[in-house]
């Protein structure tokens, strides 16, 4: 299985506005793989790692770490799981546990590594070059416009949106701790950030 299986891609040739298919599946797959791994099933850890590594990467990169730093944090997160997995009593919690661990380490690394390395356009454009050829130009154009709009948001908004976009069941308490915001302000800030993004999008003609 490839990492791209984790998140459904836009159906080719269909409307670019794709309603999210069952987003729960990532968490359910992670939970099932975790149970299988505890039972000693061969290949179960492979499934857990291939399912969650791309999600952890996104969470970690939201903290402005370099690619190398992000790789270190993701690797470290899995090593922590190996040492502390028996503390996870509810299999459904394994994805959230991994994300919280990764975010905490990412925040720590971002704070200690001064100055933080921003997600530079160069890196992103390089990643963009690797996009598979079958992806529709329409989707790519839409992504470009969305990205241009996201970059105009305050950094805190960018980070918060990147977390909630990849966290199926976000723990506001965890996010509050990571972002050093009062827990009660996460929900309203999330809404304000989404609204700001809509305003910027609308000003630019919106997305089709």
């Amino acid at each position, binding site marked *: 299985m490839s990492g791209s299986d984790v998140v459904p891609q836009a159906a080719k040739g269909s409307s670019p506005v794709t309603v999210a298919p069952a987003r729960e599946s990532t968490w359910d797959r992670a939970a099932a793989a975790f149970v299988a791994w505890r039972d000693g099933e061969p290949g179960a850890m492979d499934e857990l790692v291939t399912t969650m590594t791309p999600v952890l990467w996104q969470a970690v990169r939201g903290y402005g770490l370099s690619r190398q730093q992000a790789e270190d944090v993701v690797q470290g997160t899995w090593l922590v799981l*190996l040492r502390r997995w028996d503390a996870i009593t509810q299999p459904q919690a394994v994805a959230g546990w991994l994300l919280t661990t990764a975010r905490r380490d990412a925040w720590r690394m971002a704070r200690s590594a001064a100055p933080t390395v921003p997600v530079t356009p160069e890196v992103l454009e390089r990643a963009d070059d690797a996009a598979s050829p079958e992806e529709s130009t329409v989707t790519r154009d839409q992504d470009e416009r969305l990205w241009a709009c996201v970059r105009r948001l305050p950094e805190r908004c960018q980070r918060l*949106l990147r977390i909630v*976009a990849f966290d199926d069941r976000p723990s506001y308490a965890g996010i509050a701790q990571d972002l050093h915001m009062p827990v009660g302000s996460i929900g309203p800030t999330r809404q304000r950030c989404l609204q700001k993004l809509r305003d910027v999008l609308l000003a630019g003609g919106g997305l089709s």
Partner: protein
Amino acid sequence: MSRYDSPAGPPDGTPSAVLDDRTLLERLRRMWLRRDPAPEGLARAVLARLAVEGLGEEHELLALVDAAGRLAGVRGASDDRTLTFAGSAVTIALRVVARGDGRVRVDGWLSPPAVRTVRLTSAGGELLTTSSPLGRFEFGDVARGTATCHLDPPDLAPGAPAGRAGDPTPLRLVTPPFTL
């Protein structure tokens, strides 16, 4: 919840360009996945690391020391090749031969010769065999893709604790992931 957060999409009179929360977040998710994806080999690197860390100190990760037939610029009629892995006290050679049906055959030699339980794990599952007293083993029909080879003492179930008092040789061996 915002005024746009309805599964039915934007309310009447709102420009169609306005996306509800869920759709907007899904679009953001897709955009970040495409613009800043995880490095290709990251999951594989994690698994290689876990394979070693998770199985105890008696485990030894072998190193790929030679991959004949795979050198840059060398292109034969087939992609047959030999991978050689070495540890502190053993060498394992894997000869990979294309079968013609899109799958491969893997012949292995363990040196010095020893009877070992040999596991070949890949996306296609896990294959199990035992090396002969001369250290030979084979997997006749293997799916292409990324694989890892484990060699365990024959009297140990996979995953059971290894290690014998007074025996300094690592009992479990594992190769880094390689491509078939």
